[in-house]
């Protein structure tokens, strides 16, 4: 059993524009700012950016794995905040930790400088 505040999982996520095209295909989110450099620049962005819900989905999948290991029970709620854009291609860190509440986990995407991009707070109920 992990102690409160412990980091339970850390992994690298390398994401490129091909990944974003594949996500657009399976999710139906075909906003071109995610895979077309010219379209992104036209809107004042530095370049293509990762779909926020792609990052959310990635974190929720990682939360599922960690919550099984921690035997936290059934997922009942997720609260996701999109803190900053994620340029692609890019390399990010996925981190899952346990906050003070024993029945919850927090998953984050951090950029290369360690700044928060996306955060998911997940709550669990005993099965």
């Amino acid at each position, binding site marked *: 059993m992990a102690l409160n505040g412990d980091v339970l999982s850390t992994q690298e996520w390398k994401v490129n524009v091909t990944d974003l095209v*594949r996500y657009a295909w399976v999710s*139906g989110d075909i906003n071109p700012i995610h895979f077309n450099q010219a379209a992104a620049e036209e809107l004042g962005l530095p370049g293509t950016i990762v779909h926020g819900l792609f990052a959310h989905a990635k974190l929720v999948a990682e939360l599922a794995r960690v919550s099984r290991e921690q035997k936290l029970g059934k997922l009942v709620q997720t609260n996701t905040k*999109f803190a900053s854009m994620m340029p692609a291609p890019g390399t990010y860190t996925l981190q899952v930790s346990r906050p003070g509440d024993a029945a919850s986990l927090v998953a984050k995407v951090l950029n290369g400088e360690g700044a928060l991009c996306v955060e998911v707070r997940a709550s669990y109920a005993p099965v």
Partner: protein
Amino acid sequence: MESLNLTREIVGRRYPARRNYLSDTWVRSFAQVVCPDSAGEIRDEVPEFFIPALRDGPFEIFNDLGVELKRLLHVSQEYAYSGALKINDWAESVSTISDLKEKSSKLGSIYILDVKTVFTQNQKTCVESLMRVFVRRS
């Protein structure tokens, strides 16, 4: 901008139900992109990480409101899971504009728009979502 339709009168507007068939192929394809290790573990229930693929119907809503995508900033998303969606069955989702506020921020004058969506399968509520976006006025 002339077509932007963001007034308090839109709060409570309900959009027609959307139906999605949750095919095994679609769910596994999504899993292959998001988390390849999990694709082999999928059985008869849709994993929670798949729910964003159902997408709440936001493009239709923003078109209806005259909001260009470039004016949007997705700031938060909540999901409450009360039951698992089953694979190889239909799911229905109904979206409602649940709140609209206007405020000044470092981004300039913005609207804060909340869209609530209820996902059901065979008349049973499985997931509820609340999407919050900022809409820049200019």
